[in-house]
């Protein structure tokens, strides 16, 4: 399959089941909602080192938020049920509770699994906190120096998908970066998907474990590293001198697939030789995203 002169390789991305929460942060202005969201999702690129993965799903208009103020929707993922509330309590407490004018709402109200995140954070009020039930949902009012911080008592948790990906194999770094930027731009604000890495792009795609260091969970993917082509088994076609990866997490596989379709198409620019994907032979992750099926419009 060739799109705009770029070969779509006959391979698939392999992704994992994770647990996901959607956090809606509102603020007096979009700027303050964004400030809180950026702090909340900082250092949350990969569960390998950050214990969670998070990113801004999209910005919300005032008409889309519970309190009628501009907001930001954040997706937050962990590998297991237990660590999701732990990470949320620590991070929301340090980043959203502290941020001027913000309030924090559950973005998955229909999810039956509930995480008592606001209920845990209420104790910052040291006994002066109070709650209100509005429309059947309980909110905690935590007194702070600015006034009051409002946070929903529980947040929904559901199964999500982490580790959707595709690789951009280009003739030179500038072409790879331009293609990656185009792909990220095309996927920005798509519902149900985040790109947890810096600017949505990864330059250091990894393999599981290490050949040399026992304590390393992940190390460089030499098969896709151009500088190692001469001394290690390489997966790079001739003429490829730089590779960038786009990693996608989301609320469900169809959302990831839809975003990949848009992103891959946008990445097929001049200087890109092919689009590939990372997998583990199909043995580790239950979610497979075959590139050619996705790009031909066939649901994977």
């Amino acid at each position, binding site marked *: 399959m060739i799109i705009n002169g770029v070969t779509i390789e006959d391979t698939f991305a392999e992704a994992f089941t994770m647990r996901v929460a959607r956090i809606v942060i509102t603020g007096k202005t979009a700027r303050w909602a964004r400030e809180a969201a950026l702090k909340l999702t900082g250092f949350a690129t990969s569960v390998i080192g950050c214990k969670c993965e998070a990113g801004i799903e999209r910005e919300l208009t005032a008409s889309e938020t519970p309190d009628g103020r501009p907001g930001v929707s954040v997706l937050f993922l962990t590998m297991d049920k237990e660590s999701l509330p732990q990470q949320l309590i620590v991070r929301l407490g340090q980043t959203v509770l502290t941020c001027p004018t913000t*309030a924090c709402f559950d973005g998955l109200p229909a999810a039956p699994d509930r995480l008592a995140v606001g209920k845990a954070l209420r104790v910052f009020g040291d006994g002066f906190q109070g709650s209100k039930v*509005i429309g059947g949902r309980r909110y905690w009012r935590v007194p702070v120096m600015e006034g009051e911080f409002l946070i929903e008592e529980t947040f929904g948790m559901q199964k999500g998908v982490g580790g959707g990906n595709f690789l951009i194999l280009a003739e030179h770094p500038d072409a790879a970066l331009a293609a990656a930027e185009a792909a990220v731009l095309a996927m920005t604000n798509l519902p149900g998907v985040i790109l947890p890495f810096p600017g949505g792009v990864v330059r250091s795609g990894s393999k599981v474990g290490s050949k040399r260091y026992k304590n390393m969970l992940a190390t460089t993917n030499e098969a896709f590293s151009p500088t190692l082509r001469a001394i290690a088994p390489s997966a790079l076609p001739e003429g490829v001198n730089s590779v960038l990866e786009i990693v996608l997490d989301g609320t469900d596989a169809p959302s990831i697939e839809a975003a990949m379709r848009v992103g891959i198409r946008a990445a097929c620019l001049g200087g890109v030789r092919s689009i590939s994907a990372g997998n583990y032979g199909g043995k580790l992750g239950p979610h497979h995203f075959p590139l050619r099926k996705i790009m031909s419009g066939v649901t994977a």
Partner: protein
Amino acid sequence: MSDVVVLSLRTAPVGALELAGVTPDRLAQLPQREIAALPVRHAGRAAALGDFFTVKGERAARVRLEGDLRLAEGMGAGMMGGELVVEGHAGRDVGVAMTGGAIEVRGDVGDNTGGARPGAARGMVGGEIVIRGNAGEDAGAGMRRGLVVVTGNAGRGTGRGMIAGTAVVFGQTGPDAGRWTKRGSIVACGPVARPATFRYACTYRPPHVRLLLLYLRERRGLDVADRWITGRYDRYSGDLAELGKGEMLQWAGE
């Protein structure tokens, strides 16, 4: 089974008509004939609901009452769920001791809306009451949880002895509002005669009031002005003669 049970007043009562057992959660279980046979009291004497109302529909948790019901007392008293709409004025004791569901009165109501039964310490413990009109005395008195909204004026003793919950008055709030309150909120968008045992704390924009008023506008269809949603409120803590963890939020401007 129908979508709604409609009770249309056919015979006007000449004395107090007690409707305490006529609740949506109960009517949701009953066929039309049994609804008409539900016991009520009229002027202190036993009667049947069907003696006064024409019943349409059955086995529905949405109930609509039609007619001049100023002499009807205890509508929605103790209700646990469902929806009760009164098309017109209602008498006293609307929603007393209710635990869930929603009541909407499209007219004025008498005293003790959402309050306690005689001798009981607690008023309503859940659910929502929206009065599209004026309320008599003691609206939300002794309430433990829940929401009472009055779009017009509320009489003396609104939220008196509240244990928790929220009362919102868009018009004028009468004297002794919040007296003996332990916790809970009284949101006064209009003038309020505040007891001296409430102490000023600050002027701010309470985020939960914004959320609540937006909910009332968007989900309950009330005509809530932007100035109340985005406005500043004076916060008074009280009743300091009691626990003092309650609050009165008085609208202070845009």
